[in-house]
C-alpha cells in the first residue's frame, strides 16, 4: 500500500521548500522530492575543491521576503545573513579621470575607481570626486527609489488577476494599488511609469552623468536577462536593489553564512520542523493524472507517490512538456508554454584562490574587496557585452560581478585561502552557428572571464588554484533550469505579472486540476525571493478551505 500525501512538491529549490514549509505548517502531510543529493536547487553550497566551499550558482541575497523569514522563523533554523558592504568599480588606466592622489601626494594606483559603500556620507564624498551634480542627485534619487520600492512592494504578494476574465473580484487588490498610486505625487507617478518602461541607462541618465556610476547601477537591471542596459524595460529591476530588506533595512545586500546553501538548509529545517518530509535523490519522472486531475508522481526509480495536490517548483516547460503525458493539456496551452522565453544569458565562474588579488586602481587588500566588485567601467562597455550575446557569442569583454565570500565568512576556505564568486554576463544559451556547443566553448569562456578580471587585477592568474566554469548549459544540466535561465523564464515585460507564465494562468493554478506551480516561472519571478512558493502555498490552502496558520 503506497504512501499517500496531501501534497507532493516537485523540486527542493528554495521555492519548493518554502511551499512545503507553509503547507506542512497548515497541517498538510507534505513531501518534497529533490533529484539531487543536495537541497536548494540554484541556491546550494558545494565543496567543488577540497577545503573550498562555493555558492555554486546564486551567490547573494537581498530579496528574500521578510514575512517568510518571520513566519518560518528562519533565524532559529540557522539563517544568518552577513552584510555585504559596498560596490567597487575599478577602471582602466586613462579611463574616467586620472588616478586619485593619496594623502602623501602620491598617485594611488593606476586608473581611477568608483567605490560606493552603505555609509551614505562616504559615498556622496566619493561621488563628489566625480561630479557635484551626481553627488547631489544621488540623495534625491535614493529617496525616490525607496518611495518607489515602498509603493511597489505589495505587488510582490498579489495574485495576478486575469484581465480577460469578467469576474471583478481578483481585480480588487489592483484597486488598492490604484489608490496608493493616486496618493503618489505626479512626479512619483511619472517616475514609476518610467521604471516600468524605460531602459536602465536612459532612466539613470536623467539624474547622473558619471559613466561608471550609471554603468554599475544599470548592471542590476540586466542581471539574468537577455537584454542590454539600453534595452527598454530594464529600469524596473533597479528597484529590486532598493527592495532588498535585511533586518528590515532597505538597500542592504548580504551573503548567507555557509553560502546560499545556508538559506536552503534553514528553510528545509523549518519545513521539517513543521512536519514536512524531504527526500533527496528522488527524481520525478512523471506527474500522474487521472481524468484531467493530478493524482501524484512517479519517480525515475519507478516508485509512485499518490497525493491530493501536486506542486511543481520546477519551471513551466519542465512541468508541462517533460513531466506531463502529451495531450494532458490542450494544444493552445502547450503552444503558450513553448512560446515562454527562457534564453539563459548568465554564466558563473567559481575560483579557489591562494590569496587575494590586487587591483591596479587601488592596490593591496582592503575594505574595497569586502563588498561586490563590479567590472562595469562604462555604459558602452556594458552594451558591447550585450551586443556580442545578441548575435550568439559569449561576451568577449564580459560584465563580471565579483564577490569574495571568505572575507566575510572565512569558514568557506582553508585559513589564508579564498573563494571568489564571479557572476558573468553575457553567456547566451543559444550559441551562433559555427561556434560549436557550450562544451566546446566552456574553457575559452572561462579564459575570457579571467582575462577580463586580469585587466583590472593582473595578479589574479597566479592566485588561481582551481577554476570551475558554469555555462548556461551546465546550469541547465545540474539544476534543471531550462536553457539555464536563472529566473525560470525571462523577466521581460511580456512575461511578467498576469502574463507569467501563461496569460490567463498567472494564479499558480494550471489547466490540470490539483497541479500547481510554485517556482520562479510564476509571479513575481526569480531571485531568492520566495514569494512564489509562499503565495502558491497560501492559494492552495485557501482553495482547500484550510487556515493558512
Amino acid at each position: 500500500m503506497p504512501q499517500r500525501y496531501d501534497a507532493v512538491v516537485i523540486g527542493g529549490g528554495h521555492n519548493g521548500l518554502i511551499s512545503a514549509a507553509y503547507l506542512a505548517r497548515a497541517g498538510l502531510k507534505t513531501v518534497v522530492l529533490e533529484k539531487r543529493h543536495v537541497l536548494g536547487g540554484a541556491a546550494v553550497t558545494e565543496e567543488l575543491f577540497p577545503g573550498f566551499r562555493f555558492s555554486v550558482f546564486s551567490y547573494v541575497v537581498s530579496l528574500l521576503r521578510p514575512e517568510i523569514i518571520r513566519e518560518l522563523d528562519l533565524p532559529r533554523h540557522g539563517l544568518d545573513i552577513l552584510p555585504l558592504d559596498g560596490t567597487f568599480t575599478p577602471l582602466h588606466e586613462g579611463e574616467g579621470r586620472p588616478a586619485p592622489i593619496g594623502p602623501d601626494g602620491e598617485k594611488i594606483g593606476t586608473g581611477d575607481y568608483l567605490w560606493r559603500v552603505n555609509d551614505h556620507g562616504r559615498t556622496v564624498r566619493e561621488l563628489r570626486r566625480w561630479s557635484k551634480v551626481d553627488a547631489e542627485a544621488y540623495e534625491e534619487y535614493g529617496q525616490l527609489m525607496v518611495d518607489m520600492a515602498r509603493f511597489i512592494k505589495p505587488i510582490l504578494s498579489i495574485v495576478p488577476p486575469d484581465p480577460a476574465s469578467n469576474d471583478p473580484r481578483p481585480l480588487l487588490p489592483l484597486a488598492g494599488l490604484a489608490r496608493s498610486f493616486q496618493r503618489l505625487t505626479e512626479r512619483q507617478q511619472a517616475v514609476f511609469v518610467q521604471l516600468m518602461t524605460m531602459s536602465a541607462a536612459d532612466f539613470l541618465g536623467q539624474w547622473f552623468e558619471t559613466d561608471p556610476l550609471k554603468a554599475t547601477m544599470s548592471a542590476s537591471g540586466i542581471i539574468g536577462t537577455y537584454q542590454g542596459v539600453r534595452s527598454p524595460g530594464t529600469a524596473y529591476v533597479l528597484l529590486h536593489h532598493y527592495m532588498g530588506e535585511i533586518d528590515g533595512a532597505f538597500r542592504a545586500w548580504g551573503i548567507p553564512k555557509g553560502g546560499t546553501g545556508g538559506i536552503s538548509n534553514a528553510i528545509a529545517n523549518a519545513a521539517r520542523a513543521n512536519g514536512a518530509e524531504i527526500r533527496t535523490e528522488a527524481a520525478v519522472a512523471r506527474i500522474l493524472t487521472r481524468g484531467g486531475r493530478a493524482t501524484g508522481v512517479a519517480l525515475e526509480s519507478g516508485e509512485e507517490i499518490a497525493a491530493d495536490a501536486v506542486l511543481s517548483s520546477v519551471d513551466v516547460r519542465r512541468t508541462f512538456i517533460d513531466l506531463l503525458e502529451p495531450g494532458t493539456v490542450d494544444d493552445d496551452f502547450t503552444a503558450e508554454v513553448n512560446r515562454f522565453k527562457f534564453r539563459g544569458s548568465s554564466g558563473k565562474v567559481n575560483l579557489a584562490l591562494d590569496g587575494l588579488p590586487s587591483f591596479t586602481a587601488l592596490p593591496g587588500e582592503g575594505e574595497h574587496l569586502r563588498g561586490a566588485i563590479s567590472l562595469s567601467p562604462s555604459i558602452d562597455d556594458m552594451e558591447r557585452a550585450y551586443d556580442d550575446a545578441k548575435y550568439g557569442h559569449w561576451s568577449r569583454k564580459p560584465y563580471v560581478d565579483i564577490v569574495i565570500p571568505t572575507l566575510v565568512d572565512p569558514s568557506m576556505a582553508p585559513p589564508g585561502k579564498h573563494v571568489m564568486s564571479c557572476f558573468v554576463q553575457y553567456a547566451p544559451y543559444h550559441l551562433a552557428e559555427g561556434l560549436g556547443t557550450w562544451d566546446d566553448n566552456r574553457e575559452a569562456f572561462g579564459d575570457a572571464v579571467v582575462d577580463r578580471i586580469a585587466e583590472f587585477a593582473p595578479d589574479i592568474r597566479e592566485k588561481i588554484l582551481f577554476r570551475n566554469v558554469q555555462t548556461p548549459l551546465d546550469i541547465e544540466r545540474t539544476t534543471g533550469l531550462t536553457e539555464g535561465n536563472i529566473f525560470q523564464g525571462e523577466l521581460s515585460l511580456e512575461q511578467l505579472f498576469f502574463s507569467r507564465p501563461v496569460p490567463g494562468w498567472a494564479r499558480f493554478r494550471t489547466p490540470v486540476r490539483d497541479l500547481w506551480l510554485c517556482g520562479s516561472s510564476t509571479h513575481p519571478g526569480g531571485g531568492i525571493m520566495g514569494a512564489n512558493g509562499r503565495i502558491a502555498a497560501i492559494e492552495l490552502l485557501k482553495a482547500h478551505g484550510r487556515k493558512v496558520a
Partner: protein
Amino acid sequence: MAGPRGRWDAVVIGGGHNALVAAAYLARGGLHTLVLERRERLGGAADTSELGPGIRVPTLAHTVGRLRSSIQRDLGLARHGLSLIAPEVRVFAPRADGGAVTLWSDVAATVEGLRAVSSPDAAAYPVFDRRVRVLGRFLDELARSIPPDIASPGLGDALAGLKLGRSFRGLGRDGARAILRILPMAVADLVAESFESDALRAAIAWRGVRYGAVGPWSAGTASVLLMDGAGNDGGAAGETVFARGGPGALSDALVAAARAAGAKIRLNAEVATITSRDGRATGVVLADGEEIQARSVVSGADPKRTLLGLLDPVALGPSLGWRAGNIRTPGVVAKVNLALRALPRFIAAVDDERLLHGRILVAPGIDPMERAFDASKSGRWSETPVLEATIPSIVDPSLVESAQPGTHVMSVVAQYAPYELGASVGSWDDNREAFGDAVIDVLETVAPGISALVSHRQILTPVDLESRFGLTGGHPMHVEAGLDAFYLWRPLLGHGRYRLAIDGLYLCGSGAHPGGGITGGPGQNAAREILHDLGGRRR
C-alpha cells in the same frame, strides 16, 4: 479676422499637418483661429520640394496612407484637391542575391509569392495579417480616445473607460490576453512566433523600428508595428499610399480646408514665446516682437521645444522643467532624396516594374537591422543603413512632368543615423556626404548601376531635420515612440490629454497621443478637447 478686441480664440503654433488639421476643426467649430508658421511654406514634414529644375520630391515623409479617413471626410480633402494613389504593391524587399519578399495589398497575392520563400510562412501570413488587423482595430479605438484624467476622473472619463473596456472585451478572451502580452514585446520576437523566413520577418518588423532609436530586438517595438496599422488598411504589409503631387499636396488640401473653414494662416511668422498670466496662456510673441493675444495657444511644435523653448521657465516650474528636459528625442533617421536620369534596374525585379510602385525596403534580415541600430547606440552612423525607398514618379509623373524625359525621383528614409555623433566621428557637416555615399552603396547592392543614374541628391541629416523643421533632436515623431511615451503618458504623465503645463496651452502635434506619422490623429483629438474647453460648436 480676430475675435472681439483683437483677441483670437485659438492661435496655432506651426503649420505642420497636425496643426492644420487642428486649425481646420477649430475654425469649423466656430473659433477664431490663427495659424503661425515660421517658414515660408506650410506642411512641416509633409512637404514636396524642388530637387532640381522641374524635379519635385517628398521632402521628408513619402507616404500618407495613415491619414485618418474621418479627417478626409470631415474636412472634404478630396474636394480641396487631395487625390490619392494606392499601388497594388505595398512592400518590395529585394536582396543582393536576387531574391525578394513582396507584400501586396491583396493578401492572396502575397501568399502566392511567399510559397516560393516558405510554405509554412505562406500559410501563416493570412493568420498574422488578420491578427494585426483585429488588434489594430482596438488600438485605433485607443488612438481616437482621449486618455482619461486619472488625477480627478469625471463622468466622461468613466464613460470613455467603459467604451474602451467594451472593445477590449470585444477582442475576446484570447485577443485580450494576446494584446497585453504583445504590446511590450520586441517585434523580432513577435514575427519569429509566426514566420521562419528571416527576409519576411525583416520586411514586416521594419515598421516596428521605423523612425525610432530602437532595433528589432528592443522591447516595445511590437506595439509600434501594431499602432502603425491602427486606423488604416495596413495589416501585416503596412500602408503604401501616395498623394498626387507629393505629401505637400496633402498639406495644400489641409490649408484649403482650414481657410475654407475660416482659419487665418500667416507665413514667416516665428513664435518666440508663449505669454501667460497667473498660470494661464494669454497668447504669443513673435520673433519680430509683435504680440498676439488668444484665449488658447495650440502648439504643433514638439513638446520639448514648446515647454523649454517657448514657455517661460517660471510658468513651467522646476519639476516639470526637469521632466520636459528628459523627454527622449533621439533622432536616428536621415532622408536622402535622389533625382535619377532613368528608372534603376533591381536584380530582383528585372521583368516586373510594378514591384517598384510601393515601398522598396532594403533590410536583408533581422540581425542586419539590429547591427545597423548598434552603430547608432555609440554615436556612429551605420555603414549599411536600413533603407525604405519609394519612386513616386512612376505612379505620379506630375512630380517630373517638366523635367528631362525619363527622369525619376527616389525618396529614401535611411536608418540609422544618430543626431548625436561620437566625438571621434565629428560633426554631421563632416559626415553628410559620406553617409549619402553609404546609402547609395547599399542601393547599389540591390540595384547595380543606380549610382550612375543620380543627377541630383539631397541629404537631410537629423541635424538638418532639426534646423529645417524645428524637430528637437531631429526626431520625426517629435518624441520617441517608446513604451515610456504612450497613451496616458505621451508626452508626459499628467499632460497626456492635449492640455499642457498651464491652462489654455494645448499640444496638437506628434508628441501627443496617438503619436507621430502622417495620421492627423493628434490634431483631430486635440481640437476635440479644445472645443470642449472653449465651448465651440462640435461637428
